[in-house]
């Protein structure tokens, strides 16, 4: 991940999935701080608080209580201040409609969470590698 990038936001309700992401990032020596929010609504209010620094990447789960990932995208991608932040969906859903809708809402990637941890690490490694090379909007 670019070192210019301040933080990564993880929107995820599952505790173990959160642990998995944290552990994988640590294992891969990704030093960017991780900002964890439990659902779309929390994420929106965090992002809209001027006191909080904007993340350079959002890892977004789809199936969450209160406000799911798709609903979050529908709101965030209409928000001038937020729509520029790249979002990578991290989900279990293989549903075609979820994929189509996510990309229509302008996500930068759509990843299926692998069932075993080593594969999960590989997935995070790829994300990290990509966003280390890719330029980010300022």
């Amino acid at each position: 991940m670019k070192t210019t990038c301040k933080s990564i936001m993880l929107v995820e309700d599952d505790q173990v999935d959160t642990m998995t992401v944290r552990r994988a990032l640590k294992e891969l020596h990704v030093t960017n701080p991780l900002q964890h929010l439990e659902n779309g609504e929390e994420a929106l209010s965090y992002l809209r608080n001027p006191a909080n620094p904007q993340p350079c990447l959002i890892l977004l789960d789809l199936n969450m209580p209160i406000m799911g990932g798709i609903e979050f995208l529908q709101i965030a991608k209409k928000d001038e201040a937020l729509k520029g932040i790249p979002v990578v969906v991290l989900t279990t859903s293989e549903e075609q409609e979820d994929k189509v809708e996510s990309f229509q809402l302008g996500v930068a990637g759509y990843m299926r969470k692998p069932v075993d941890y080593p594969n999960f690490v590989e997935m995070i490694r790829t994300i990290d590698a990509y966003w280390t090379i890719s330029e980010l909007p300022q």
Partner: protein
Amino acid sequence: MLLIYGKSGIYKRIRSPLSWRIGASRGFKNNDGLLGYRGKDLVKGLAEKDPRWLFDSAADAMFIAGPDGRLLFANRAFETLFGYATEELSGLSVESLIPPRFRQTHLTQRAQYAEHPASRVMGAGIELYGLRKDGSEFAADVSLSPLEDGLVLTAVHDITRRKRAEEALAEQSARLRAIVDTAVDAIITIDERGMIDSFNPAAERLFGYTPAEVQGKNVSLLMPAPYHEEHDGYLQHYRDTGEKRIIGIGREVVAQRKDGTTFPIELAVSEMRVGGRRLFTGLVHDITQRKQAEARQEKLIRELEGANEELKNFAYVVSHDLKAPLRAIGSLADWLVADQAAKLDDEGREYLRLITQRVRRLDGLIDGILQYSRVGRIRETLAEVDLNQLLREVIDLLAPPAHIAITVAGALPTIKTEKTRIQQVFQNLLSNAIKYLDKPQGEIRVDCTDAGEDWEFSVRDNGPGIEVRHHKRIFQLFQTLAPRDKVESTGVGLALVKKIVEMYGGRIWLESKPGEGSTFFFTLPKGVAITIGES
């Protein structure tokens, strides 16, 4: 030669070119008024030309009988109608011209008539019958004109045809009445003002009123509010504008019985004019049962839709909610191995390995369920699929080990279908063949033959083969023959293949010799793309 004698008793001798049918000796008594001839004129007329032509040209049978009831004269039409020859007429009695059952009465009547002779015109309302010489009867209208000296001129008109027409008419009207009376549907006629004119038995049963109770009453009493109040206005509107809302169209409305309960009906109204009156006929069909059946059906469909929706959600929930905890278990087991390795003994590590393996298996099962449920639920766009190309792709993807050779025989057809589905079919059949191959030199062959309306495909291997008793079982969901710990299999593959093939209207089966190998066959109708596209 004919002798005519009048009141005066003077005989006239008449020479005639025509012969009288009744014996000349019996003569013809003139009554001076006959046929408007004065006695002299008649005689004169007869002298000039026999007046018989007048009688003979009449269409009706005519005869003159004396006081004794014996025929004195008869015309040609009489002979034709009654079937007598000229020479048989002499002495024939009037009674012999009517059926025996009327004779006695006739004698009396004739006696009374002789006392009070009067003209009687035809069709005076009495049913009379004539008797022919051959014994057959016919309906007749008879007119009597008294002549002088007790002579009576009788004209007989055969009314058989009219009678038949009348009977046919009566029968037809009886039949029509019977139709109305026995109709299953209520038939109600009303006049222009909406007053009930007729009410058939079915209407009686349906509404609970007797005809007497409703005749002359406003038909709106058979309707619940608001139709009840609106009907007069509706009729008025129709009278004024001719605009039809129900007449000639028919629709479903609600009717009301005498006891106030309502029920759904199908009402068809037609307009008719009878004898200058405008009447409306309402045909009322009770559709209570149909409505109930419809409601039941709607409920069933709603339930079915609900169940279908639930199933769809179920698949979705399965993919999200079952997998998340499963993944967590997998990760945690993994971390235990990674972080706590020093604290675990071999047994502990083995347990954790088994946990991870079961997690993967369950993950595979869930994927299988999802895959299986997607077939038929999610439609792909149809495309021309070149099966030669598809097979190459599938074989590349499966990357069979070096000791297994896959050959594709001849040229495979190009079919219009859903590519993913047909790919799943070949992929599963081939991967099964590869997975279970137990020979040092594996041989798998894909073939296709033209079976008329179908394409028949086959995938043959020289693997372990499958006993006949298992041939049914292997196509069922989650059924496997090898223990899962030996060969990782979800038991979804063949069930999926069967579901896809059958969805396309094809069949799947296998032939196998245990130890030597198996051949899986499946057919696809050549016209398959069209039916699927339309469904």
